[in-house]
């Protein structure tokens, strides 16, 4: 930084011009580092040879100018300004051996590194985007055939399974546990349901046996079940007051009829 004093004047002119141009769209900068990088370009030297001291002054001039123009600068610009002012003082003053922490040169070197790195990343980004790109310069296959996942399920059974299955059905009665055979049973609920639908038409005394469903009289078991269920249902209906029920004598046919409303 030998030539700093000499440079200071020339830069202060160009820096002001630059700052004034920059100040117009401070919003376009992505923060202080971005601004610093832009400012550093006005030095027209390789970033590795940049004068951080000059850059700090450029930046401080920029902030000063912004203040004059009563521009609202975001806090981080002011933080950077403060930090650069501190850096500047460190760079200008002879190092105090008693002082702790990094020297001005170290801090300046790091800032230079940061600027160089940011610039390098920007260049790289540009190079990357300049590459041939998929879907723009080169293309994938237009017709894709996805791999079909064919899931085939095969079922197996052995001859033994088959024979045992058959035997199981044919010999079921041999070891059949006692269960009500629902197929041949009519429950009272079923009979009740049936009779509720029919009873509306029974104004005259009718034999209860005429309420038995068709086709249930051939099989004795079914006949018994349905007779019992129908009888029980009749009693239930009588209890509900829906019908009247009578039997002339023991074993005589049981007759029912709809109970007329307000009959008694």
């Amino acid at each position: 930084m030998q030539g700093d004093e000499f440079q200071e004047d020339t830069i202060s002119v160009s820096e002001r011009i630059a700052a004034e141009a920059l100040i117009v769209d401070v919003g376009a900068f992505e923060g202080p580092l971005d601004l610093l990088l832009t400012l550093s370009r006005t030095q027209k030297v390789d970033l590795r040879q940049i004068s951080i001291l000059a850059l700090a002054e450029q930046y401080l001039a920029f902030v000063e100018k912004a203040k004059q123009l009563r521009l609202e600068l975001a806090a981080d610009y002011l933080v950077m300004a403060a930090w650069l002012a501190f850096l500047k003082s460190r760079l200008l003053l002879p190092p105090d051996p008693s002082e702790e922490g990094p020297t001005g040169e170290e801090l300046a070197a790091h800032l230079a590194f940061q600027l160089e790195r940011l610039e390098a990343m920007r260049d790289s980004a540009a190079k990357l985007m300049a590459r041939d790109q998929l879907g723009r310069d080169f293309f994938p296959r237009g017709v894709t055939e996805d791999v079909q996942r064919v899931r085939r399920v095969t079922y197996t059974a052995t001859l033994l399974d088959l024979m045992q299955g058959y035997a199981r059905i044919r010999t079921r009665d041999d070891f059949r546990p006692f269960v009500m055979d629902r197929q041949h049973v009519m429950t009272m609920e079923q009979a009740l349901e049936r009779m509720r639908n029919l009873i509306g038409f029974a104004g005259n005394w009718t034999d209860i046996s005429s309420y038995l469903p068709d086709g249930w009289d051939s099989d004795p078991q079914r006949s018994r079940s349905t007779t019992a269920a129908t009888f029980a249902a009749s009693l239930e209906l009588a209890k509900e007051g829906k019908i009247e029920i009578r039997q002339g004598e023991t074993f005589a046919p049981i007759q029912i009829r709809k109970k007329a409303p307000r009959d008694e």
Partner: protein
Amino acid sequence: MSDKPDNDSLFEAPPMGEQERMVEAIMFATAEPVTVKDLIGRMPHGCDPAEALAHLRKRYEGRGVHVVKVGDAWAIRTAADLGFLMQKETVETRKLSRAAIETLAIVAYQQPVTRAEIEEIRGVSVSRGTIDQLIEMEWIRFGRRKMTPGRPVTFVVTQGFLDHFGLENARDLPGLKELRSAGLLENRPPPGAVALGEAEDENDDDDEDQTELFEE
């Protein structure tokens, strides 16, 4: 992006090799089959895509993909003999459900048999899925209609069934007595088979969902 320099004339067509490359790239990248007209429209002036196509077609002869004609357009397609590479088959083996085995057994032993007969023997209604499954497996098929009222269809077992079970004829199936004497009969009801009729009845509703087909 076109940075092919035109050497002599503005409209000189690229060499045929180049045209072939172009056709190749276009056919590769386009989702739809491409007509010669499309190609003419897309390639530089003076190109002869039809000829380029012919070259390209030749080049792909015997390769893993071919240049094929689709209507009046052209496309690159997988060679037919390599279609198997485009499928990944996973085979899952499941045990046939009990309902299916029993139905199958009834058909095998009593064929020709109607659905109503199967139901009578099994004591529960036979779900459609069960019959369908057995037909799909090509183990049973439709036989003659029965000469009874309603002329119901019957089911019989197929040659595939006989092959699978190593039978020459369904009549070769051992009878009940033979099964018993061979010790093949289960003497006890299988666990969980108590109130057999009822349990199965309940399942009948689920049948439609085909749960019966998949027995773990």
